[in-house]
């Protein structure tokens, strides 16, 4: 019966329900401070999840985005150290450039060296984390280094009534709208969907797997670079050992909650956006009701499992054959 609904609506139901339940159970969430902390959580996760979505649509997975974010954050921090009055556009360019290069490295390893995506990104998860240490000389980026032009992205914005929408959230909204439009209209991005639902068929139509992998991992890295700006603007400091650690799990969870099939081929920006919103709301509600930091990892693991359960795909045979996520790359 739910099959009658358009897919975008159907996939939006689980995250929307989750958000509604959080607000019902935790009425304090409607307070302005809680809403503000949701709004400051959301952009970083959202940007990461948009990049991750395309990778998952292509039938792969990118677990290195947390480390790419760390690497790009440290690179941006070091850049700001030497160029304290750099315009904000340049900050974006630096972080995005570092992220893009890192993503293209992933894409080249998967596409040309034919290493399975999961194995590649587990390996680069470690390697990019090492680069985060190398680029910063294992030092911490402190608040005095991070210029106001970057922190203003999170603290200033467009006022709506008594409430301000931070610039970085506006950037994320624009990025999501742009990606949504691009995914619907650009043939190259359409072919990612074709490739994800049937790699063999896509190959026969002249779509090369290496170019797809280069594209999706490159975009995933690029968005992780954008997310690095969001990270630095929100926290105004960064340590190479902790910036972005574990965020890949949140990004994957958001995409899974947003109804994208793990076997590839489907996935929409809007439901994934709700997935991100849900995770942000959940995060803040846990803090509001006083669940300690010690519990977060456990709760998070449970939610990822619940999301996997909710996402149970219609085609089990296809799902089990992609069990390692590696067959597609073979």
């Amino acid at each position: 019966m739910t099959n009658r609904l358009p897919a975008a609506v159907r996939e939006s139901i689980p995250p929307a329900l989750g958000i509604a339940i959080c607000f019902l159970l935790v009425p304090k969430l409607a307070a302005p401070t809680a809403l503000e902390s949701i709004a400051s959580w959301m952009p970083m996760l959202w940007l990461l999840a948009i990049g991750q979505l395309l990778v998952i649509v292509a039938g792969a997975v990118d677990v290195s985005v947390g480390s790419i974010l760390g690497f790009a954050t440290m690179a941006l921090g070091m850049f700001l150290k030497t160029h304290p009055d750099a315009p904000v556009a340049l900050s974006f360019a630096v972080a995005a450039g570092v992220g893009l290069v890192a993503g293209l490295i992933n894409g080249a390893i998967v596409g040309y060296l034919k290493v399975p995506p999961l194995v590649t990104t587990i390996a680069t998860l470690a390697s990019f984390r090492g680069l985060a240490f190398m680029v910063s000389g294992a030092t911490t980026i402190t608040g005095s280094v991070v210029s106001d032009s970057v922190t203003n992205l999170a603290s200033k914005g467009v006022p709506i009534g008594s409430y301000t929408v931070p610039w970085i959230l506006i950037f994320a909204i624009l990025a999501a709208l742009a990606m949504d439009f691009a995914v619907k209209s650009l043939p190259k991005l359409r072919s990612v969907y074709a490739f994800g639902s049937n790699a063999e068929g896509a190959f026969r139509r002249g779509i090369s797997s290496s170019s797809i992998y280069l594209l999706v991992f490159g975009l995933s890295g690029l968005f992780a670079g954008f997310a690095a700006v969001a990270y630095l603007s929100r926290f105004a400091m960064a340590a190479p050992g902790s910036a972005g650690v574990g965020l890949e799990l949140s990004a994957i969870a958001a995409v899974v909650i947003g109804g994208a099939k793990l076997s590839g081929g489907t996935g929409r920006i809007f439901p994934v956006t709700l997935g991100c919103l849900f995770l942000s709301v959940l995060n803040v509600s846990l803090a509001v009701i006083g669940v300690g930091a010690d519990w977060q990892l456990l709760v998070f693991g449970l939610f990822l499992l619940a999301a996997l359960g909710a996402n149970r795909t219609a085609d089990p045979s296809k799902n089990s054959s992609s069990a390692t996520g590696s067959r597609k790359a073979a």
Partner: protein
Amino acid sequence: MSKFSLSRLGWNGTHSLITALIFLTLVIGSRVSDRFLDRVYLLESVTLFAEVGIVALVLNFVIASGVIDLSVGSITVLVACLYAKLSAAGQSLPVCLLAAIGAGAALGWTNVLLVKLLNAPAFLVTVATLALYRGIAQVLMGPQSVEIPESWVGIDTQTFVGLTIPLWILFLLAILIGLVFDRHVFGRETLAIGSNEEAARNAGVNVSRTRAIAFVLAGVASAVAGVLMVSRLGLARHEFSRGIELDAITMVVVGGTSIRGGKVDVLGTVLAFLLISLVRTVMGIANLPAEYQFSFMGLLLIAAVAAIGIQPRKLLLRFRTRS
């Protein structure tokens, strides 16, 4: 045929390459520090990695069957914490050990149940349990570390006929696993599933049962690693053994086991264990921070898989002539 050759014992090009690299590492190590080639020092430093080596050996079953288990590091740390908590509560040594091994099996079994229940790919389920199991350890321990009684401290320093106890466990386990893959139905069925799941199912192999056993074994091996770890360190904390799944998978893949399943190389895993533990030791005495070492492990993993991917045809030929 009567002529003796190493290849009849299963020695192949990968093994020669790894052995050469081991010697190279020894030479480089002796240049970095005069005391590197000291027998006791080498034994100690290789023992440090025996826990990961044990996990890697058993992970061969999971990987050879064509799937992957990323939760091994979290099982290791959770079991270590459980052991510490139990022994701090005054339980006797055998009870603690049995409970620890049982917990490892149960956690491995939980992975299996979740894969079946959620009908999701194993790697994603184990990504979730990676977070879940470590999360449980964190809730259990909080920020403190729990010390264990003297009775189980320092098994890594006890030697028997020239080798430490963890290394004995590792080498005996390697022989056992080698035999299972070579002779036992379970090993043969694991390889059959890894090379062609559909064909194996048609040939009457119980695919889900065989994989379930592989996951439970990986859980037990992680528990053994956890118990050895508490013994070595004398205490447990929830943030221990982070990222050892990368080390373990790298050992398996560098050793020549195919990440896509269907081909296993137990001797290769042992040699890769020796190589990686020596390389990590050299990097340690050269004062390379842990994160740089991880970077290197990542590169090594990619290089190993890519080296196989680049010449698939050659590999296929070697397969055919050997089996």
